[in-house]
């Protein structure tokens, strides 16, 4: 996983965040694809999620608890899923905010058949945070955002792994 400082101010103190990583999931790509294109399941993988309300096949609203440094509160997020017709890539737009802060994220994942019955989920994402969450929490925002995004994709892996354990 890597963070690529980008945009923001000239000296790199901006609050544009970019991350990437991958998860190896012990199920085939078809199962993964069905999961990541299901708005309800994707919504429930968000860290510290409190509420999930599926709007339609590609839209879900979620309320998540956010804590960045001393700034704590609930974010209301709108998630839009943008599955690629190829069935191998899913993009997401996530926007929303709360307590005077806002976040705009885009994330994408390639669903790659590893050829051994497992799937590689190669993901990347970028976020722009604004308001107190960026300003007051600025010094810990990067580490916190990294942790949250890692946790989100780890949750996908765990959710997909759990039924397999049950089946076994």
């Amino acid at each position, binding site marked *: 996983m890597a963070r690529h400082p980008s945009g923001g101010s000239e000296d790199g103190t901006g609050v544009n965040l970019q991350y990437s990583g991958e998860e190896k999931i012990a199920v085939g790509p078809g199962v993964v694809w069905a999961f990541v294109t299901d708005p309800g399941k994707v919504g429930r993988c968000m860290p510290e999620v409190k509420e999930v309300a599926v709007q339609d096949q590609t839209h879900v609203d979620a309320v998540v608890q956010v804590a960045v440094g001393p700034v704590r509160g609930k974010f209301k997020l709108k998630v839009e899923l943008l599955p690629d017709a190829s069935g191998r890539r899913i993009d997401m737009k996530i926007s929303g905010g709360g307590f005077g802060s*806002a976040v705009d994220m885009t994330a994408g994942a390639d669903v790659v058949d590893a050829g051994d019955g497992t799937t590689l989920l190669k993901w990347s994402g970028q976020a722009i945070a604004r308001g107190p969450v960026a300003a007051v929490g600025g010094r810990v925002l990067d580490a916190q955002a990294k942790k949250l995004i890692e946790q989100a994709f780890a949750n996908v892996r765990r959710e997909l792994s759990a039924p397999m354990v049950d089946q076994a």
Partner: protein
Amino acid sequence: MSTEPKPGGSLGVAMKRKEDPRFIQGKGRYVDDISLPGMLHLAIVRSPYPHAGITSIDISEAMRVPGVRAVITGKDLEAAGLGWLPTFHGFDKQMVLAIGKVLFQYQEVAAVFAESRGAAADGAEAVHVEYAPLPVVTDPFAARTDQVILRPDREKKTNHIYHWEVGDKDATARALRTSPRRISQRIWFQRCHPAPLEPCGCVAQFDAMGRLQFYVTSQAPHVYRTALAIVTGIAEDKIHVISPDIGGGFGNKVPVYPGYVCAIVGALKLGRPVKWIESRTENLTSTGFARDYHMDVEIGATDDGRMTALHVATTADHGAFDAAADPTKYPAGMFGIVTGSYDVPAAHAEVDAYFTNKAPGGIAYRCSFRVTEASYAIERAMDILADELRMDPVEVRRKNFVRKDQFPYQSRLGFTYDSGDYQKALDVALEKIGYKELLKEQTAKRLRGELMGIGFSTFTEVVGAGPSKHFDILGIKMFDSAEIRIHPTGAGIVRTGTKSQGQGHETTWAQIVAEELGLDPQNIMVEEGDTDTAPYGLGTYASRSTPVAGGAIAMAARRVREKAKKVAAHLLEVGEADVEWQDYKFQVKGVPAKSVTMKEVAFAAYTNMSQNEPGLEASYYYDPPNMTFPSGCYVAVVDVDRETGEVKVRRFLAVDDCGIIINPLIVEGQIHGGLTEGFAIAFMQEIQYDSDGNNLNTNFTDYLLPTSLETPHWETAKVTTPSPHHPIGAKGVGESPNVGSPAAFVNAVIDALSPLGVRHLDMPITRDKVWRAIRAAEAKTALA
């Protein structure tokens, strides 16, 4: 006019501040100390976006928060005709709460009223606003292209706000073309913020008769009353503005802010008092910033250093609204003082201002309007000229000074300087700082590769707005006022239209009255800030209190003295023409033994006035004939660590000429405070925005205030050239050190770095900026 206190007099006496026992015991009464029965609290929902359409505002969850009583939005205010408020400059208006879209991060979007401050904050967090982001413009040079129009609400569909110019453009261009030597430099005075320790706040309540009582942190209470009458439609007699103790203003508490209007609307709508106290972040991100002038300076000169021409073209970043709070006819304030202390034969200055997606402002942060920017530009440029000519910056300055015999001096940019002795101030500074020795030390250090710098700033400012023929705010002429009442026992009260925020008015105003009337300043009470009792005045900012209200106090006291003279004549049993005021008492002309004191006269004015009108009081509305022109010579000595870039200010000397000094102790304190702020601006402070429009300095961990650990030791000295037109010869001093010092600091650092070929760095001169400049210079040398 003597510059030393007379025996028995009060002028020039280093009297301890009468207000300080109250403050140092924690007994000051600030707005946040005011608590009224049934009071609600206001919290403001602010935009996290710097430029975005507002798609929806959902207040339903906020209204369910326990304790929340109401939420209002821009549309609510617009429906009530209160959607916009005029800025003090008068040519623009500002949204109270965002209508349709937001134009800067932290802009006011909704107001939440609740039973407690916590409930209001919780309610504000529960207001859900959907935004549709729009392209962001944070750079005034990008704004200039008009690719994104930020203010479609305005008639002119452009980001350009105004063009202002002064001086002879053609003559200056000709002189520059024909000058043997020429320098040019873009000099940016960064966006900074006054950051008073007490942020802005208010308490609004309507009494049983429907009259608004408005407690507020205002530097100009009377102007607030008039502005509120204009904005809200409430008759001015139904508005009572009270500014209690104020914990610092520095220009930040001159504008009327949206929170004030919201508090009043809430109090009216809910029938209960409403308090609004902003947070530090709200203060830094949404209330009046200062500076943000990009100044392209060109100087023409002869080979031997005589200036032939000065041209300054400025691009000003005003943020989302033109809320610069300048006098009506002066959109760029007193920027025409940019010729400084120098007799330049041809000069031209122009300013073009633009809207950007940043907080609005451009207020006069501890200076007269835009004077610090002007002073910094010319004082930096003089050093660059000296560098170009390989001359001592001291000699270049000396060669171009307005001479003492040229006063009153008519500058090429329209000002008539009242008095000054720039040569003398420089001589005093050179002697006190030990300039010759410092030069020797610097030479020796440079041979060892050490970086030591000596920086000068020989500035002139223009303060005391101002003569009514030129200056007004919202059409109100910029006079000021005083009302004096002497009680039977010789104690008294003086009320003025100004408002102290720490300047020590309770002491200095008492000293002026005491000096004029021969009374004890300890028994002269000073009252300001209550529009029901104080005479109308324009307030305290732009170093105008002593030049304008100080004049009013002296003139009102002289009126009291005229009346007292009649009573004295009765007591002395002579005709009024035979009475003279001598040595702080009335005496029969030529018979000093036959005299009465003002205290005796005061008692008689109530007990034995004969045919004279009882009582002893007078008022005066003073319209100054001219501005005053304080000046100074500041010297900074710095050592720069070549490895780390750390700058140590080893010495700093301020030689000030502020005319006649009322209280040297207070003047000294004012200079110390102003120098500390100038030091912070030079080395620490900037309100930065990233390219996405995020404000990066929203609290005191990112916007630094110097503590006693960082602050250098200040050395001070004075020269005195009384203002010839001011009733007591005073010029004002509170803002000189902030105006004059940034250039001295920066000039010293650049002087230290000059052996490396560094010619200019923009403020703040942070350690990393210096380190990078040193490394870049060394890399360049290595390549060569």
